[in-house]
């Protein structure tokens, strides 16, 4: 899932300082699961903004609501009236949610309340770790199901580097060395031969380096009705 963290209150306030009526929009999917932008967090942010602006002598009228997914038109289309009534919207969706709202409501001021951090999973409650870099060409089949693009600090395809010590990455004693994990996994499965092949220079164009990405599936597209 997408993992995010809330921005500091001060920063969010700076983004909406000219607005009097503010709507905080939570999202009921990824950011709910990572406790960053669900209905609860939207409520906490709304009351925090109300209290804070009141204490500073310029109270804002802040309300909140939550949609199931900010990243799909059908969930955000019904917000037209509520968004039309406010001066600014704080989206507690990920970067996709913020942009979906901004695209759907071009006249509205939509600002982010979260920093979208990474694609990852909660390894335990309250602890999230990155797992996927969305690079567009998955090599997990060669690396024992452990991604060196997302989990090696240097994105090595032929690791580990010399900085792997006691199973940890040299850049951070809390980060396991991805290549140590890959090695152990493949050794346990008796598949170390996979590592003997030199992985050639990668085609990064399937990732962000190739420019913004797009997928079109003609089999899924709806037949366009003639313009009336």
């Amino acid at each position, binding site marked *: 899932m997408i993992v995010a963290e809330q921005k*500091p*209150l001060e920063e969010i306030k700076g983004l909406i300082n000219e607005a009097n009526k503010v709507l905080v929009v939570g999202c009921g999917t990824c950011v709910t699961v990572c406790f960053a932008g669900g209905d*609860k967090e939207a409520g906490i942010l709304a*009351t*925090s903004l109300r*209290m804070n602006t*009141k*204490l500073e002598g310029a*109270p804002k009228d802040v309300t909140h609501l939550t949609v199931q997914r900010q990243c799909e038109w059908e969930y955000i289309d019904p917000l037209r009236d509520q968004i039309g009534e406010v001066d600014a919207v704080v989206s507690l969706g990920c970067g996709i949610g913020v942009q979906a709202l901004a695209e759907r409501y071009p006249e509205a001021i939509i600002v982010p309340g979260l920093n979208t951090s990474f694609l990852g999973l909660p390894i335990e409650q309250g602890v999230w770790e990155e797992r996927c870099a969305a690079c567009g060409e998955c090599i997990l089949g060669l690396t024992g199901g452990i991604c060196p693009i997302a989990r090696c600090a240097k994105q090595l395809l032929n690791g580990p580097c010399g900085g792997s010590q006691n199973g940890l990455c040299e850049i951070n004693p809390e980060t396991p060395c991805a290549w140590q994990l890959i090695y152990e996994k493949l050794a346990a499965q008796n598949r170390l031969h996979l590592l003997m092949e030199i992985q050639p220079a990668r085609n990064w164009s399937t990732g962000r380096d190739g420019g913004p990405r797009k997928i079109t599936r003609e089999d899924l597209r709806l037949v366009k009705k003639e313009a009336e």
Partner: protein
Amino acid sequence: MNTADGTPLKIVAFCCRYCSYAAADLAGVLRLRYPAETRIVQIPCTGRLDTLEVLHAFEHGADGVMVAGCLEGDCHFQEGNLNARRRVEHIKQLILQIGLEPERVEMFNLSSAMARQFADAATSMTQRIIDLGPNPLRVADRDQMNQMIEKPAG
């Protein structure tokens, strides 16, 4: 009991039904004195403490919030009180960002037999709030009310 400027105090105590809620009850039975401003809200376990409800208490005028759970190691649900303590620390950070003193919220641990300690905790919390003064949000409310009276709308 009032704050220095004469406004009556409001302190909300979120009490676990297995310990401090019973302790408060026992304090009553034993005729122990504790500040009447303490408004007790029973919760099934402090692990159920909701950050949003604490913030709403402050937003609606509470001057202080006590959270009282079982003694550490004695939680009816294993570790709800330990989770609550961390949550209270988090709430302190939140209200600091909002502009309230983090001392306005505090975690206590009591057993159901500790009526005296409950009364002491309520008294010390009340004293702390008296020293801090009323919730500035209430003061802001009053100031805005006064402004409206001085300059009627229209």
